[in-house]
């Protein structure tokens, strides 16, 4: 009885240098995959290209009418907006980040969720989209102080900087309480 063809294939002698080649391959240091984060919303604010996790950037809306609040509106707190039947405080991230009014266009509104049921509206110039599991990149030219940011991402030729959500909300609360 002859051996099956498959056994003959597996039992054949190793090609010369195969063992060394395999050893070298296994010994080689694996290149670590670049760190990736959860989905982020990319948006523009004047000259800044910024990002926020989708859990924080709760919704994107057309520009909403802002009702001024006596004695309060004018700085970071712009006023009140109505979103899905709720009245929300509207704040200016631009003013918080010292982006001058001339540099901004306020074409969209981000509805930010600080915690469940605690929403803020904030105007932005444009929403560039949502990036799924974006790859972190190293950026030497961060446009803001380090404590504002928690990472940078490449999106095409542009680099977007993720705002540190905890710091952002802390500053919004300080400036508007």
């Amino acid at each position, binding site marked *: 009885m002859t051996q099956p063809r498959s056994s003959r294939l597996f039992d054949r002698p190793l090609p010369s240098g195969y063992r060394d080649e395999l050893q070298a391959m296994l010994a080689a240091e694996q290149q670590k995959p670049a760190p990736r984060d959860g989905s982020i919303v990319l948006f523009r604010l004047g000259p800044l290209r910024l990002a926020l996790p989708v859990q924080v950037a709760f919704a994107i809306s057309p520009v909403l009418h802002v009702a001024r*609040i006596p*004695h309060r509106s004018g*700085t970071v707190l712009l006023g009140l907006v*109505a979103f*899905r*039947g709720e009245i929300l405080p509207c704040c200016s991230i631009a003013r918080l980040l010292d982006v001058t009014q001339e540099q901004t266009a306020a074409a969209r509104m981000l509805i930010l969720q600080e915690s469940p049921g605690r929403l803020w509206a904030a105007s932005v110039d444009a929403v560039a989209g949502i990036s799924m599991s974006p790859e972190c990149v190293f950026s030497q030219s961060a446009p803001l102080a380090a404590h504002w940011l928690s990472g940078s991402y490449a999106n095409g030729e542009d680099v977007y900087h993720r705002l540190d959500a905890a710091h952002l909300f802390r500053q919004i609360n300080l400036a508007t309480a």
Partner: protein
Amino acid sequence: MSSGLEDSSLFDLFRMEAEEQVRVLQSELIQLEEGAPSSRTLEALMRASHSLKGAARIVGLDQVVGLTHAMEDRFVAAQRGRALDSADIDRLLSATDWLAQLQAVEEAGVASWLDANAEAIGACAAGFEEQQPSVEPIAILEDPGCEQPVVQPEIVGEQVNGWRAPTLEEKPAIEPAAAATSAPVQLGDDKTSDPNIFEPQGRDDRAARERTVRLTADRFDSLVSLSAETLVAARQLATWGDVLSRNHRAIGKALQMLEDRSDSPELRAELAQQVAVLATQISDLDQVSRANERTAEHLYRAVLAGRLRPFSEGIAGLPRLVRDTSRELRKSVKIEITGESTRVDRDILERLEAPLRHLVTNAIDHGVEPPAQRLAAGKPAEARLRIHAGHENGRLVITVRDDGAGIDPEQIRERVRRRNLAPAETIAGLSHPELLEFLFLPGFSTRDTTSLLSGRGVGLDVVQSMAQEAGGAVAVTSTLGAGTVFRLTLPVTRSVIRVIRVMAGGEPFSVPMVRIDYLAHLEPQGNAEKPEAVWNNRRHPVVVLASILGLGDRALPKGPVPLLFSGGFAFAVDRFIDQAELSVRRLDARLGKIPGVNAASLDENGLPLLILDMDDLVQTAAGRPSLAAPQSDDSGAPRILVVDDSHTVREMERRLLVRSGYTVATAQNGQEAWNLLRLNEYDLLISDVDMPQMTGIELVTRVRANPRLSRLPVIILSYKDRVEDRTRGLEAGADFYLTKGSFENNSFLQAVVDLVGVAAQQHRGGQP
């Protein structure tokens, strides 16, 4: 849709159940004391204590399990014929007090609260146990309708913290109330006299109550928001229908022109058909949209009506209060409540409890005479205290009426004279109703001595404040020797109010109708500095609403201007828009109290609209705002002006400084601070940077440019923490630049001490 309760902790759920069952226990116990015990009352009491015991066991509140078990035992014994006497009722009410107290404890503090009170709760429960017969035969009964053996819980039970709790599934055997024998009676022997408490209830008064579902307040508010949004969407649909109709007419015209130039009969027919189809579709859309709008309107009103609760829910504690207070004062008082099913807004109901409690206590303490005195006056020894709620002309009216001694107007007159509250000739001419008005003054009391209950002059002003805050009023009438009536008039709901919409400073605002005295287009008189408008033969100072709201200084235009009269002032607006009915939304708590603003709403287009607080605006117009100069202070402590548009930061700084002995005044923005600085003397200015109207940098720059203020020490406290921000602040003239992000009490206070020194004495200069 969920109720929102899934987010509640088990303790929250226990708390809700306890609230309901304690209400049942207290009201039934009071009824029990007033009349002969009925099997229905005892059954309700046992059911309530049993339910509470089960709930307490689930959340592991052993002490409460023991207490409710002891209560349940006592009710079972009462059902067997061992009557509840007055001491028993006292003990049982004390037990419900523990349960009520526990409801108020935060979940995190429950364990320590129970530890602290375990002994007292145990003693309360042991009080019932001491009353139990020492030995009773063990009886395990076979319930024909139940697979489990039924165990008499008071007989077979494990010891829970010193007293018994049943170990088996509790199905206490119940004897007919009339049967005073200790022999156990099998359940189901006589269903008519002894119904199984675990069976669904029959036609008793509980079943007659409304079926209710629990819904958290947040979830309910969310329903209101969504229904309002539905209404807005429905109205927008109707608007689009109108637009389509206009387009249809325009297309029809254009087609007519095309038709005139066309020789093709087929084309004409086709065009005519398409226009007809479009017209039909628009008509259909119109019908659907109108039906949709009606439904949305009904939905909105139905949801809003859900905020209305029966008056009885807000007064559950009053019978108990009357019982305890009259007993303490050795008086005999019977309370009669009518109109219990009157619908009252949930918010108003919550706020009614304290004023009503005060009025009731007041009536018993001040109004009702001791029994002997009543008999001598030809009255029954037992006084009547009647509380009635009802709707009158779209308002909620609550009266608290006693048949006591009434209020002596001459006693009030004498008190007014002694306290020098008005000129002597005015006091002499005061009418009876005018004299009664003095009762609502803070600190005014007709009593020379104080007691635990009254005579401290605290209370009636609180009743009045509550009524006014809720958009209502309180009035008192009294007949000497016959009794006193307090009449609270309140809106039925705070959820929907009628308003006048006005434009001020280019922004729309709404003013509650109940706060408007008069509207008119009048030309202000007098000089430009102090314009006045005359209405009702009275001169009213004219105030520009936009200016007082901080929306910019606006000069009055020449000629007649729209004026809104309220609280003795004429508020000039850009224009009156219309009147409307708005659903009231509370302002976001993150915003704190906004001067001059009471609440918010959405208009018919879904845009936010602020509802003005006219009382606050009148106060501001009269020169009594926070802007007013600080009260004179002769303590010698350094005076500090704190400026920040964040009320949280402002208050935090104020408390910190006051606690350290400084005298503190506050302002909300640079402009307000600048006004105060020009009017008063301060030793230190502490300012934020980003503020409306005038920034901190602008303020500091002005201070440094002013010869009198140029040497005033200044601290900037800002959330801006970049080097350039610091530089900007220091270059403007600040002595210190501190950041809120790295705020520390000690470094803040050290900076203050460095600039103005230590305050000589602690805790001076105001309330922390």
